[in-house]
């Protein structure tokens, strides 16, 4: 889980965008080239695999003509650029190949497992934002105090600890020793048949169906991985909040707000935070994207049936279609989150809306 602030910085500079039409165009070019790049990278990774895709289908003892026919069927005799063209067309129309492991179309597998990952990442980001923003504000306001140091250390440990290790230790403590949380997994086997999810977001489904015992069980399952991802999100969000708030609190409009006789609470939580919220939106979106990625390791620890577990299982079984499909989907979701946060940024900062 490496977190980049580059996006935040670029976006700040983008405040002085020229004209609306030009920025829309630039935006479209960015999206298209990024998707193209994602396809290109996954395509080439697929080509360098040492596993021969033909042999994987026909077996090593197949006669030469069968081998050759399959090779042509797979389009492997075509020049690379044509292969890439076919690959792109298929991928963009939703055909990511078939998983060797599950023998389902990869996209269908991903549709099935992705809500679980999103649910986990959402819980994590919620925890991170709800706790991280106030902590960051506190650290900035009481800069240099003991509280600031504590927030700093919490953040630094979050940046430095291996997530899978912390997950294992948490399981030992909260599951094996204290019995506070449920066995790894998403829902208890008892409810596997009585509960039929519709949207794939189990917590939401169970709550809407009024199955409160299921909600309780789901909660006991998601609490630990959710809290773990929440901690990582908190580390990032509190650190960035502190830095944005320090920047805002040193501005002249804060002096003006004091000169107006506003209370410190209003100055901090309304004036400064409202301004810091503009770049914070990007940080929260980035944090959400990072948690989607962080789920790869978290899900293996907690047997959480999401995209991360799907990718690692496929990896272990050399199921490259599934791995690359998963990579492509996560990459596209990243692009989507970026677009979303950009739009949100525009609505929050009046300076990006020109008259």
């Amino acid at each position, binding site marked *: 889980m490496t977190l980049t602030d580059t996006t935040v910085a670029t976006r700040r500079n983008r405040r002085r965008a020229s004209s609306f039409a030009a920025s829309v165009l630039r935006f479209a070019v960015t999206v298209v080239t990024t998707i193209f790049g994602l396809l290109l990278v996954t395509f080439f990774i697929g080509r360098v*695999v040492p596993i021969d895709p033909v042999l994987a289908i026909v077996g090593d003892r197949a006669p030469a003509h069968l081998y050759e026919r399959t090779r042509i069927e797979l389009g492997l005799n075509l020049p690379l650029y044509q292969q890439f063209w076919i690959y792109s067309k298929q991928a963009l129309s939703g055909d990511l190949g078939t998983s060797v492991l599950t023998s389902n179309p990869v996209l269908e597998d991903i549709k099935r497992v992705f809500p679980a990952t999103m649910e986990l990442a959402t819980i994590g980001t919620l925890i991170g934002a709800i706790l991280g923003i106030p902590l960051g504000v506190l650290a900035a306001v009481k*800069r240099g105090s003991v509280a600031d140091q504590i927030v700093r250390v919490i953040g630094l440990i979050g940046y430095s600890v291996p997530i899978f290790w912390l997950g294992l230790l948490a399981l030992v403590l909260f599951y094996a020793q204290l019995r506070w949380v449920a066995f790894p997994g998403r829902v208890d086997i008892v409810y596997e048949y009585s509960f039929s999810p519709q949207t794939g977001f189990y917590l939401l489904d169970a709550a809407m169906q009024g199955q409160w015992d299921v909600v309780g069980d789901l909660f006991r399952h998601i609490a630990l991985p959710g809290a773990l991802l929440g901690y990582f999100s908190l580390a990032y969000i509190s650190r960035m909040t502190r830095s944005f708030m320090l920047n805002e609190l040193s501005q002249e409009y804060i002096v003006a707000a004091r000169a107006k006789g506003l209370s410190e609470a209003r100055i901090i939580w309304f004036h400064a935070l409202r301004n810091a919220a503009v770049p914070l939106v990007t940080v929260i979106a980035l944090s959400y994207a990072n948690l989607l990625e962080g789920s790869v390791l978290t899900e293996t620890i907690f047997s959480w049936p999401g995209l991360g577990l799907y990718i690692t299982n496929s990896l272990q079984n050399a199921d*490259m279609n599934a791995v690359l499909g998963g990579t492509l989907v996560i990459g596209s979701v990243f692009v989507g989150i*970026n677009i979303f946060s950009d739009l949100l940024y525009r609505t929050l900062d009046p300076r990006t809306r020109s008259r």
Partner: protein
Amino acid sequence: MSIPEIALKPYSRAWLLSDRPASRQQARLGRAYIIWRRFAENRLALVGLGILILLLVVAALADVLAPYDPVVGDLRNARLLPPGTAGYLLGTDDQGRDILSRLIYGSRLTLLVVVLVAIIAAPIGLIVGTASGYAGGWLDAVLMRITDIFLAFPKLVLALALVAALGPGIENAILAIAVTSWPPYARIARAETLTFRNSEFIAAVKLMGASPLRIIIRHVMPLCLSSLIVRVTLDMAGIILTAAGLGFLGLGAQPPLPEWGAMIASGRRFILDQWWVAAMPGVAILVVSLGFNLLGDGLRDALDPKEAGQ
């Protein structure tokens, strides 16, 4: 009317802090001294530096420091001994190997990963960024689009896919991490280059007939270095964590190499009863990446005071 030069004792404090350095070397050392003083004021940064020096020493002297062989254990007598057992400070694993010895040798692998990734990724980022920033125009546009594409990828997932394709192993893990690490460096180097591309001193060098290549290498790159070093140091923790994650998934260093992430993976099976097998390597990872983070924070504050507190 000049103030008479007082001869300062070379390498003394006053000599270093003199605002009229007599030689290039004195000016350089003086600047380094000021940065060091700013850095040394930050106690946490010194802790970080201490951790890294310790890591270097341990890695260098692993043969002397490690009480046991890291690979071959005592299967008969020493399986899964708890920490504190006579002779085994941190306990032993399922193959009767001393965990402390494995951690000590593992520090070499951690250093290897960190150093190699830095050596591969930082120069790529530096070259792409400075070329892009200095040349501008279509070259800039193309290079930055490529950079953005790599930035759009989730790093760990891309590294996973790469290692899956190249085959598991520590070399491929290093390569995969390096491939996913350079884009932010390119961004930083480009931003730095843009700030002084049109400055007077570059114009002066140009007038003297220096080629673009010479300008980039001799004049632009050195100025990008300090912010790049800070960024690379701050990234080290992430690199260590990614490498450990790959090791944990069985895609990094292969057994019996004492890689810390892989050690956690092999200890996972006994986590409920012999917790120390998985716990100890995690502590090592935490301490080392914390060291890099503290050092990076301190370096940033010392090299770039206006960013301090960020």
